[in-house]
């Protein structure tokens, strides 16, 4: 039975969405400070306007706070869905004023790509973009990578009531610590430590490469955020190819893998249980998948005329398998080189890597290793059941933080989300092909958007059709939400609008 949302439900959702909008606006103080410090006055004005817009919109929504009622799981799902959209809409405002985007829609594309840690970009003249705007683009990766709700929770911007519902609605189904606020702060701690370590390592690499001190620091910080949060933005139009450095690629691959791990796994290992790294089924499946796809890609590349030497196989093959599988999306290839030079075999292996994704409760998107593990275990259970006496009760176990028994509920949940991902991948690919792109390139871009990866085979640019821009924005948004929260939002709006008018009081 559908529960009809009341006006109080709508006010509840509006209030918390307003809190998130105001929170995003306050975060713009970082690029604003960057602009002031570096004397980028035009960019500073963009962030003043952006903060003003965000605070005004947030304040207006917050004024709808209901006098009674508390947050429940339905509200949390809708707030989570709307929160990501609101963050992207508000976050796009300063970018739209930057002069580096052809329209507000293009700025929204990059903002959505940033918050969802996708990394696809339609920016124009990125190499001459103001530092403040690059700071904001990469900061959206940081905020989105933690999860908008988690970010807001840990900053305690008024999301204390119903905090756990909000946390779960964002797709983080396990609390790391008994207190959800401590959990949110722990996620920030892990990120802060990895960002500090990564920035230091890349700072040394950049300095050795001959960059000026300021650029070394800024590039190291931005790239670390982009790789650890499995984003994919870079401050240069050539993306990771700009750095053309073995050391850069090695350091970023380590950070990508760290970013692709489950925050619960970080908690277990940081709590002293280092064996969990090897015992966890999710880590095992992720490692096995990366290894298998590395072999496939290496064979395809070695057989090709373009990248056949060991050095090229490692630098072009292994780097992109890791980048794709962890959902990062940094690339050291020109987009046109995918299908044109690497060939269909290696490109399809990268598509599969993007589609699988990394771990649940990480910053990565895609189907994710845990669901692949549950589906594989379910297949094993079916086979075992078929070979057992009809009276036998077949139990299958796996290890994820502790020993667990596979239940039919787990299998159903994993299959449902997996099917939704596959449908979204294929639908996006078909639409891209309908626009005239080759089927493999269209599938590549569709999977990259839906799984929040950010690798591009050449479709994504400022000049691509408006319909595809809208499609990829929706794919990045719904893919990040793992679809369910999006459907709850759509169903909630439909039920509210189709309910008799006497059920709805004026807001």
């Amino acid at each position, binding site marked *: 039975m559908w529960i009809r949302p009341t006006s109080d439900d709508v006010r509840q959702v509006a209030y918390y969405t307003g809190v998130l909008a105001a929170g995003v606006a306050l975060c713009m103080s970082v690029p604003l400070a960057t602009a002031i410090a570096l004397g980028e006055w035009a960019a500073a004005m963009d962030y003043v306007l952006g903060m003003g817009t965000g605070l005004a919109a947030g304040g207006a929504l917050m004024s709808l706070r209901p006098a009674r009622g508390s947050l429940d799981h339905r509200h949390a799902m809708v707030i989570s869905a709307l929160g990501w959209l609101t963050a992207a809409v508000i976050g796009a405002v300063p970018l739209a004023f930057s002069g580096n985007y052809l329209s507000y829609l293009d700025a929204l594309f990059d903002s959505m790509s940033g918050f969802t840690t996708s990394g696809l970009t339609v920016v124009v003249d990125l190499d001459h973009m103001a530092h403040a705007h690059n700071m904001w683009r990469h900061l959206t990766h940081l905020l989105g990578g933690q999860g908008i709700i988690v970010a807001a929770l840990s900053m305690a911007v008024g999301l204390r009531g119903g905090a756990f519902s909000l946390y779960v609605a964002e797709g983080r189904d396990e609390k790391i*610590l*008994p*207190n959800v606020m*401590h959990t949110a702060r*722990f996620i920030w*701690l892990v990120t802060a*430590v*990895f960002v500090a*370590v990564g920035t230091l390592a890349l700072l040394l690499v950049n300095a050795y490469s001959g960059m000026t001190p300021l650029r070394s620091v800024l590039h190291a910080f931005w790239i670390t955020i982009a790789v650890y949060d499995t984003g994919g933005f870079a401050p240069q139009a050539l993306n990771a190819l700009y750095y053309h450095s073995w050391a850069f690629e*090695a350091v970023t*691959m*380590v950070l990508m*893998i*760290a970013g692709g*791990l489950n925050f619960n796994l*970080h*908690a277990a*290992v*940081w*709590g*002293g249980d*280092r064996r969990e*790294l090897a015992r966890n089924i999710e880590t095992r499946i992720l*490692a096995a998948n*990366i*290894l298998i796809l*590395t*072999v496939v*890609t*290496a*064979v395809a*590349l*070695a*057989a090709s005329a373009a990248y*056949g*030497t*060991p*050095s*090229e*196989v*490692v630098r072009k*093959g*292994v780097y992109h*398998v*890791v980048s794709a599988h962890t959902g990062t999306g940094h690339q050291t290839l020109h987009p046109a080189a995918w299908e044109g030079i690497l060939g269909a075999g290696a490109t399809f292996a990268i598509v599969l890597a993007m589609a699988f994704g990394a771990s649940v409760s990480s910053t990565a998107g895609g189907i994710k290793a845990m669901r692949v593990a549950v589906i594989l275990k379910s297949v094993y259970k079916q086979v075992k059941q078929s070979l057992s006496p009809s009276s036998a009760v077949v139990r299958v176990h796996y290890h994820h933080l502790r020993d667990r028994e596979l239940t039919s509920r787990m299998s159903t949940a994993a299959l449902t989300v997996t099917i939704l991902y596959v449908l979204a991948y294929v639908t996006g690919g078909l639409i891209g092909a309908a626009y005239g792109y080759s089927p493999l390139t269209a599938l590549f871009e569709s999977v990259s958007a839906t799984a929040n990866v950010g690798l591009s085979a050449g479709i994504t640019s400022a000049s691509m059709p408006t319909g595809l821009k809208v499609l990829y924005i929706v794919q990045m948004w719904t893919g990040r939400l793992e679809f369910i929260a999006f459907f709850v939002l759509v169903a909630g709006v439909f039920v509210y609008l189709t309910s008799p008018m006497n059920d709805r009081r004026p807001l």
Partner: protein
Amino acid sequence: MKLESPLRRLYAHWPSGLFAELCAATLFVLLLMGVGALIAVLV
């Protein structure tokens, strides 16, 4: 006996946990590079 809280346990061991993760990720990257290079030589 005083029980160790999850929060205290977490923050007591994190440097060694971080080190373990960085080592594991580095070894895994080296393994992938080795496999990639080996295949390039063999194929």
